[in-house]
């Protein structure tokens, strides 16, 4: 089972969600931190890295003794990554998308591809109180590099054909563009974590637009919700919605209802939770009521994946 956790807006609680969810799953869990620009999950596991591996992609280099400066490579590069200069063309690694066109087009075979480091992946493992194991693979983009999406792609590659019983959770980067898309593609389920503010709603819409083309089932989790009770019941919520439908105009709940988007659960805003997160505590490990919320969320995700599988 492969679950991606994403959000349009940053700071809504993706990482918090991933950690809390990982606690309620009874099986071994593999977590991929695909927020490669700013990975955070390892801060909460409080483990020393077991090992790390450099991530490389292919970049073209020009063999100047073979190059006749015909200009074909620069003409065919769609990303303007090859600049024509009087002697030899110059390749900009920052703009290059590693598509392979220049190597293919060069009539002199003067272009070859070499490895180029863009980041690394770091392995962590934690054995919990029970026998279950949590493995974390954290992607880290080198500072100054811009190619987040290829890095995410490489980190995911080894984990896409999992045994049926294993659970994979991906912490996606924020936003709704290529790197977020790279993180969520080929998953079985997507959770969009949001908060009940106009910012949260606006960015949720962007994220929904980005993922609806994929046919992957998805649901919304509302964090920092404005509810007094720590335990949230769906009946209460439905009743409230009936009574206050006019008040809820443009609200998050209304958007989800109108668009038939499943709300998986809510977590109230509590200063205590915020402080616990700030100091690196996993909420569902510390608070029983949070454990129950996430248990319920996990059940719903399993159900949804099961239904789609049929």
């Amino acid at each position, binding site marked *: 089972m492969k679950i991606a956790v994403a959000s*349009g*807006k*940053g*700071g*809504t609680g993706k*990482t918090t969600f991933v950690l809390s969810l990982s606690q309620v799953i009874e099986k071994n869990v593999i977590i991929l931190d695909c927020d*490669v*620009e*700013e990975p*955070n999950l390892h*801060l*909460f596991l409080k483990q020393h890295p077991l090992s790390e591996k450099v991530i490389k992609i292919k970049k073209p280099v020009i063999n100047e003794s073979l190059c006749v400066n015909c200009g074909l490579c620069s003409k*065919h590069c*769609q*990303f303007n990554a090859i600049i024509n200069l009087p002697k030899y063309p110059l390749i900009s690694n920052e703009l290059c*998308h*590693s*598509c*392979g*066109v220049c190597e*293919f*087009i060069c009539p002199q075979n003067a272009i070859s591809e070499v490895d180029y480091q863009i980041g690394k992946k770091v392995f962590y493992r934690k054995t919990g109180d029970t026998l279950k194991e949590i493995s974390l693979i954290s992607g880290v*983009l080198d*500072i*100054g*590099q*811009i*190619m*987040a*999406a290829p890095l995410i792609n490489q980190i995911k590659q080894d984990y896409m054909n999992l045994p049926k019983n294993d659970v994979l959770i991906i912490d996606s*980067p*924020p*936003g*709704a*563009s*290529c*790197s*977020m*898309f790279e993180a969520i*593609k080929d998953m079985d389920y997507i959770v969009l974590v949001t908060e009940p*503010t*106009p*910012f949260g709603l*606006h*960015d949720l819409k*962007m*994220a*929904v*637009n*980005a*993922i*609806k*083309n994929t046919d992957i089932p998805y649901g919304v989790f509302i964090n920092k919700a404005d509810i007094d009770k720590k335990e949230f019941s769906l009946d209460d919520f439905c009743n409230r919605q009936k009574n206050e439908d006019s008040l809820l105009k443009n609200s998050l709940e209304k958007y989800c209802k109108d668009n038939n988007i499943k709300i998986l659960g809510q977590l109230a805003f509590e*200063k205590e939770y*915020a*402080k616990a*997160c*700030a*100091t*690196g505590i996993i909420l569902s490990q510390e608070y029983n009521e949070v454990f129950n919320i996430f248990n319920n969320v996990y059940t719903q995700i399993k159900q949804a994946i099961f239904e789609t599988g049929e």
Partner: protein
Amino acid sequence: MKKIIFLSGKGGTGKTSVMSCLIDFFNNKVMIDCDVDAANMHLLLNPQNSEEFEFFAGKTAVIDYNKCSTCGKCMEVCRFDSIKLINNNLIKNEVVRASSFHDKNTKSQDTNNLSSNKQDACRTFNNLNRYEIKEFICEGCSYCELVCPEKAISLKDRLAGHYYTSDTKYGTLVHAELDGGVENSGKLVSKIKQVAQEIADSKQNEFMLIDGPPGIGCPVIASLNTVDYVVLVTEPALPAQSDMQRLIKLLEKLKIKYGVVINKYDLNNDYVSSISEEFILGKIPFIKDFKESISQQKTLTEFNPKYNNTFKPIFEKIINETN
């Protein structure tokens, strides 16, 4: 003109909220929202007279199925896995079902139509054994176009989003909306910065205030181009601090000056910041009214002017630092 950008590394620390409270202090400015994935500033500033522009970036490959011989060379060379062979059995069943349904419906009225429906279905089916380009994964590199022996593939321009220039009571706001799932957020950022620069030149603005994207990658680096000063908005939590350290390393690499605003500092009083005092522009407590003001789509200082006292010292420090 001074260009000041608000960044954080981690999302949700309050870039937009903090910037919106400082806007009113700056005279004669143009504002940009460079978080093109998830732009929010316009939700607070009540933009009027918006002018919309289309943003084209990159290309996407299109297959002409009249020419395609389904040789599969395009899928072989594509580095982005954007070309897929469609499972025709699945579609075959659907087509057959659809055509027989159609037959049933038209049977009583027109018997001649029957055969033509089946013919259509068969023709469609033959075309269904096909390669399909996922437009939202394709990066438009043209490799498939180059290798296609039938010349069945061509590249077309891709509409990647829209950008807007709007009037607000604080000055002109340039903001943008990137279409979901597409790349080129960095290019759109560069585009709107260029548009804002032109506006600033014509109006002789003194300040350019930029609401930045989260992270340290492509859109952040594009936003930082030609910027004079960075206001880092952070919060007293492990993840936010760790993210900010990575961002600071980037700023040091690019040699850009910065100062730090610690937002919601009282959520975690025990936290000892790793930032030395000289870089700290100010500390803001957790203000519940932020959420209320956002719900009313107002800036906090507009919602309740008493908060001007909280933000004025920060503004003064920024001015000192940029002079």
